[in-house]
């Protein structure tokens, strides 16, 4: 009898597992509904610098190579071929050659070729007769001397010096291949790509609609008939729309811990993930404006910071302490904890503040004679809230700060003309890579180097790490640079935020990236188990 029961149970289990396997087989059809937090400025990824564009537009395009869309941590090891079938570095690491895929067509039916790759990078490098209206990532390709084509199906990038990170940049959601035959102006209003979804329409304040590309070169994909992004500006309405099932996925990385708790209470079946987004909040100090031209004063300010308090107050604990690069385990290049704790200002907060107060007293400030400053920041909650905490922390070292909220559109113009003394800023990183982070934010001539920190010796180290092909050696160099940047108070990092995304359980194959918010939206193999 017992044997019979065991056999029956085994049979039932086997049947259940077969049914499970069947349920896990992708199904074709259905429209995926996602809410979008705003109307994007356009859908031309190359001209924009916000993932409000990447999220809906990545599905329209393909890159030469792409980060594996189902490995949350983007790294050089997770790069996969896309429009390229393979790639090879030359022996001197000065040229990178891609073999291109055959039989790929643009959404308008024209064939894709190596010329399109060259056109894209000519546009990015300002070498083409047509110009982008804005070209925010021109600097990514500063080391590319030229792009040449060898026939219809091979393209080579010639570099001025070795740069393994070029592959990382090419794999980003920010680096789609554009067609030669479509102007940049048309790409802004009606983008044409080779990707799994074709652009249908974008209505300001209403929706963005994409439809399945029947001729997609990956046979059988995409599974979805289309994707509709409903623009919902009010987050409370958006959350209710998700709970009511009007949308299947929330806008990526838009949910806070509190909102997720609310969603889970109303819809316990919802799947929610909180992950780092590789956006850091940082302190910027105008080092040319007295008294902040004194490195001692800047050091005292950095020593006053209690990073854990920022994370607890602003993010209910959902954040990470680190340097310029996103800390591990999600971050690939960030300083490990044992190195981080040796960085000045990352140790015991009370001890650091004692030291800071001593410096301030030496500089002539004290409880009766505080240093009065204005803390400027963008008039947005994500900027204002940490600025208020910063003001409170600076009070501990006799700095009496007053918040100066700056109208959002005037913020970067104000910072660029150095019309501030102390400010709070947010820095987003398109890829988790030292080349992007260092050159963009700390190179002497970079437009995004808001504090105008300039260390020529360190710049040589930027180049050294950039050219280093040995991963372990490069990491050591990167940590050394990051430590120096923090100790030089170049732009003290307050915290790295973690935010959440929720989706309904019937949405399958959705992977949220854990070290970038810009690269994981191709959506070609997402399917709906309905």
């Amino acid at each position, binding site marked *: 009898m017992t044997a019979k029961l065991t056999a029956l149970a085994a049979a039932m289990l086997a049947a259940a597992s077969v049914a499970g396997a069947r349920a896990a087989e992708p199904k074709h059809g259905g429209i995926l509904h996602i809410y979008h937090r705003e109307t994007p400025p356009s859908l031309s990824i190359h001209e924009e610098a916000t993932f409000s564009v990447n999220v809906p537009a990545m599905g329209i395009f393909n890159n030469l190579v792409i980060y594996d869309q189902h490995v949350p941590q983007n790294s050089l090891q997770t790069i996969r071929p896309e429009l390229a079938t393979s790639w090879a570095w030359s022996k001197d690491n000065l040229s990178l050659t891609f073999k291109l895929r055959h039989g790929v067509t643009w959404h308008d039916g024209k064939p894709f070729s190596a010329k399109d790759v060259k056109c894209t990078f000519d546009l990015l490098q300002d070498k083409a007769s047509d110009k982008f209206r804005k070209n925010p990532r021109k600097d990514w390709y500063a080391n590319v001397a030229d792009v040449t084509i060898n026939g219809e199906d091979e393209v080579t990038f010639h570099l001025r010096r070795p740069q393994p990170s070029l592959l990382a940049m090419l794999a980003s959601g920010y680096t789609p291949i554009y067609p030669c035959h479509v102007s940049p102006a048309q790409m802004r209003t009606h983008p044409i790509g080779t990707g799994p979804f074709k652009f249908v329409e974008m209505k300001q304040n209403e929706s963005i609609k994409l439809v399945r590309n029947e001729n997609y070169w990956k046979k059988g994909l995409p599974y979805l008939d289309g994707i509709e992004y409903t623009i919902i500006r009010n987050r409370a309405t958006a959350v209710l729309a998700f709970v009511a099932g009007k949308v299947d996925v929330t806008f990526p990385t838009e949910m806070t811990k509190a909102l997720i708790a609310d969603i889970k209470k109303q819809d316990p079946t919802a799947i929610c993930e909180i992950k780092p987004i590789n956006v850091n909040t940082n302190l910027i100090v105008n080092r040319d404006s007295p008294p902040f031209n004194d490195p001692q004063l800047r050091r005292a300010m950095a020593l006053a910071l209690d990073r854990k308090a920022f994370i607890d107050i602003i993010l209910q604990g959902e954040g990470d302490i680190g340097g310029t690069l996103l800390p591990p385990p999600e971050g690939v290049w960030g300083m490990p904890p044992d190195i981080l704790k040796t960085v000045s200002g990352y140790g015991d907060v009370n001890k650091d503040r004692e030291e800071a107060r001593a410096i301030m007293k030496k500089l002539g400030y004290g409880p009766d004679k505080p240093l009065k400053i204005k803390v400027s920041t963008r008039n947005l909650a994500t900027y204002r809230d940490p600025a208020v905490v910063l003001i409170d922390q600076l009070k501990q070292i006799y700095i009496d700060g007053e918040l100066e909220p700056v109208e959002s559109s*005037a913020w970067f113009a104000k910072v660029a003309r150095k019309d501030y003394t102390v400010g709070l800023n947010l820095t987003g990183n398109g890829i988790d890579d030292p080349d992007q982070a260092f050159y963009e934010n700390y190179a002497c001539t970079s437009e995004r180097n808001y504090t105008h920190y300039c260390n020529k010796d360190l710049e040589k180290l930027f180049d050294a790490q950039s050219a280093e092909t040995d991963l372990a050696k490069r990491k050591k160099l990167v940590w050394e640079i990051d430590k120096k940047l923090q100790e030089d108070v170049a732009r003290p990092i307050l915290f790295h935020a973690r935010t959440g995304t929720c989706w309904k359980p019937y949405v399958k194959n959705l992977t949220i990236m854990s070290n970038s918010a810009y690269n994981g939206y191709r959506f070609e193999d997402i399917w709906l188990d309905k």
Partner: protein
Amino acid sequence: MGTYLVRRFALMLLTLFGISVLIFVMLRMVPGNIADILFDAAGMIDVSEKAKLEHELGLDKPIVVQYVEWIGGLARGDLGYSYVSEKPALDEIAPRIPITAKLAGLALAFSIVFGVPLGVLSAVKQNSTLDYILRVVSLSGLSMPAFWLGLLILMVFVSSFGSIPIYTDPPKGFWNTLWLYSVPAAAVGFRSSALVMRLTRSSMLEVLRQDYIRTARAKGAAEWMVNYRHALRNALLPVVTVIGIEAAFLMGGLIVTETVFNIPGVARFLVEAIRWRDYPIVQNLVMFIAAVAVTVNFLIDLLYAVLDPRIRYSS
């Protein structure tokens, strides 16, 4: 009467001209332009690219030249291009007007249908339990912020029915349209009807104390006739004024309701356009709203003459 109409029409044109100058200048006094906003998202300002963009959009021209070009275009029916979508401004604005018009019309209907009769009832039954209840309801209508009421309605719908009456796609068919607009219209109309109700009540109370009402009663006129034929008609003048103002306000002032219920109407579009400093959209949309406001005022003036013979005779 003819002279009066011509004079009022001329005044309308003058008002619109004044508004056009005001909005044009004020918009350019706001810090930043579209180029600043576009670069802002990139976290950098490339001075040469920004200057090129400003030149391309004509933002580097003297303000007077820009104004003349805009007004000239407006006179020819050319509203220019949206800086953001790069589509004709008319194509962006026109589809949104019926959306807001439907919402505003329903909200106004809600406020008249409930506000006027309940206001009369409240006045006629002054100091009764019903009057007290209606006064409390109307006061709560005036005190509740529209966004709070809107969100509350949405929450109730989600928790009770598992659905949410927000705009995600254009509604299909009459009943679907009516359903989609009636919930936000009720949220807006609640406040408007409270206002209309309180005004009708106080206006009615004043009229009901007039000598001619007492005379009508003394002559043995039925109560309903006294209230609705003699009193209400005279009490309606200030109510009509407020309804007119509400109608004009609703065309451009539904930002909160449009945001909470995700309705892609005129007000939400205007706020977004201001955020982007999309001058062609803002200027033309404000001119449209202003034209609606002055036209409604004009119509109310005409309605006065219909409602009150004294105005007609004096003109």
